[in-house]
């Protein structure tokens, strides 16, 4: 039991570091969702099932989708800017 908590805590820290260290934004967002899911498990360990539910649905789920969606538009905007630049160098 204790070993599980230690691992889970370290997992949270690792996932958070991964989000920050990753050079690809897409990978950061995926790791962010992983972090959210680990946090949801953590809440059950802290006897807070409501928070586990909310974290999985809102924290990881909805926020993750919002981030991914924005990432898509940012990428498109970048491509558009590039394609605009190319015809007139």
């Amino acid at each position, binding site marked *: 039991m204790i070993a599980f908590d230690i691992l889970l805590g370290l997992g949270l820290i690792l996932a958070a570091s991964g989000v920050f260290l990753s050079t690809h934004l897409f990978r950061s967002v995926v790791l962010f969702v992983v972090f959210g899911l680990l946090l949801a498990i953590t809440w059950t360990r802290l006897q807070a099932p*409501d928070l586990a539910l*909310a974290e999985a649905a*809102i924290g990881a789920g*909805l926020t993750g989708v*919002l981030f991914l969606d924005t990432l898509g538009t940012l990428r498109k905007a970048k491509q558009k800017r590039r394609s605009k630049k190319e015809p007139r160098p």
Partner: protein
Amino acid sequence: MNRTLRIAVAGTVALGTLYALLVAILWVPEIQVNLPQQVALNLEQSGIAHPITAVLLNFRSYDTLLEIAVLLVAVVTGLALRERDALTASTEQARDPMLHALTRRLLPLLLITSVYILWSGSYAPGGAFQAGALVAAAGVIARLAGYDIASRADVLLRLGLALGFILFLTVAVSAMLGGRPFLNYPEGWAGSLIFLIEAVLTFSIGLTLISLFVHAPGDSSPRGGADDD
């Protein structure tokens, strides 16, 4: 700016924060007030058997009222910054038949689950916010599959967004008309009123989160012309 300097400053601040927080946590003084005990003692009077829902919608309902105002402010700003053309364009692009079929099965499931979570909130984990998030998830999936919801009917949309807040505020104010304090529930009615508020809130929260997603400015259209009303 000078990158090394930036990292050095950030590192110092972060290490200082870590040290301070750890000291504060490890040398925490013995707690004096036992609030969980008070919650337990007053739980019966609150009309709700699940302590967290009781705190959120009765003991500290004022926090929740303001929190819904925060959601509304976010969505009002989102509406103010939306673009007319963004919506139609992105609806066209995403008519994936696979996703469409999947959505058809998934949507009812999500909605039923959200009703269950809402209902269970009065005695077990669950409640308006989690249920609202599920409604929103259903909406987002439907949106990705190409269903057009929560889009144009402007006045109706705004009414739907505000409905939960309106009901909450009305119940809270009507207490004052009966000579009781703001945000008080009439005796014996607390449980049912809270459930009613939560049900409407679930709808409004779901709609709010969906429209924050749907109305987010995209880049699918060529021009950013944004005229409203």
